[in-house]
């Protein structure tokens, strides 16, 4: 069984690398340069997939966390660990690429717009979950507490978005060139391929991280068994 999962993992790695290369080729060599923003608009092709996948990871987190609380199966907790950690990484990259794109495009690093603010709050919530797990006195307690926090965070995110939206009122700032200008065909292809590539990368990272969690569990069990038989 381990061999077949190894095979799947290798296939996923190859697919990720291939699609990532294709995405980069499309982004830099095929997609036309945006007329208003210029070359910097090309950050869009990584920023948007990263952001979309960050919010996808919240769904995975909710699944893992609620599933663990319901069934107490370790597999759900491994999913919850992986989606929280990889989601946090992607969220960090979204928060880094966003301002780098916004500064030359709109002249500001940051604005308290609903999507940005929600992403920032999500980053804090995910960081809190990772931190709380590190503070737990046993892995089992960490899993339980992180699951509780994961459920709260996942339920909170849409409400945060709505509240921030009302808080700021309707703002004319348009994020994503799609609304000012229909995407040129080359742009759309680059975006879609890039989205696919980052999805594969996300899947790969989550799978590897979940497997690490499973292996760590197995190691702990073996150490325990060894201590017992001595």
């Amino acid at each position: 069984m381990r061999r077949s999962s190894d095979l799947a993992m290798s296939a996923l790695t190859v697919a990720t690398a291939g699609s990532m290369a294709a995405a980069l080729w499309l982004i830099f060599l095929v997609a036309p340069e945006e007329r208003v923003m210029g070359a910097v608009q090309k950050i869009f092709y990584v920023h948007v997939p990263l952001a979309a996948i960050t919010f996808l990871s919240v769904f995975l987190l909710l699944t893992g966390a609620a599933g663990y609380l319901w069934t107490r199966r370790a597999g759900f907790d491994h999913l919850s660990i992986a989606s929280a950690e990889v989601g946090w990484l992607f969220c960090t990259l979204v928060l880094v690429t966003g301002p780098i794109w916004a500064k030359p495009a709109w002249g500001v690093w940051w604005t308290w717009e609903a999507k940005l603010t929600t992403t920032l709050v999500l980053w804090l919530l995910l960081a809190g979950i990772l931190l709380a797990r590190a503070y737990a006195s046993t892995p089992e307690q960490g899993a339980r507490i992180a699951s509780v926090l994961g459920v709260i965070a996942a339920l909170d995110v849409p409400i945060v978005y709505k509240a921030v939206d009302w808080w700021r009122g309707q703002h004319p700032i348009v994020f994503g060139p799609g609304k000012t200008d229909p995407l040129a065909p080359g742009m759309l292809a680059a975006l879609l391929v890039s989205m696919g590539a980052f999805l594969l990368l996300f899947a790969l990272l989550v799978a590897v991280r979940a497997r690490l969690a499973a292996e760590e569990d197995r190691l702990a069990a073996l150490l325990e068994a060894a201590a017992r038989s001595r």
Partner: protein
Amino acid sequence: MKSYAFLFWGYAAVWAGLTIYLIALGRRLSRVSRRLDALERRGGGRDGSAT
């Protein structure tokens, strides 16, 4: 053109972040499997499948 500097840093940040995470993950994974291998070899004959 200044815009290219932003583009460069944007992509640099993404790839740096992903690379660092991948390296960290790979190191943790190899350390765990090294320890697992050592344990399984030592306790090969005995019941090594506690979970």
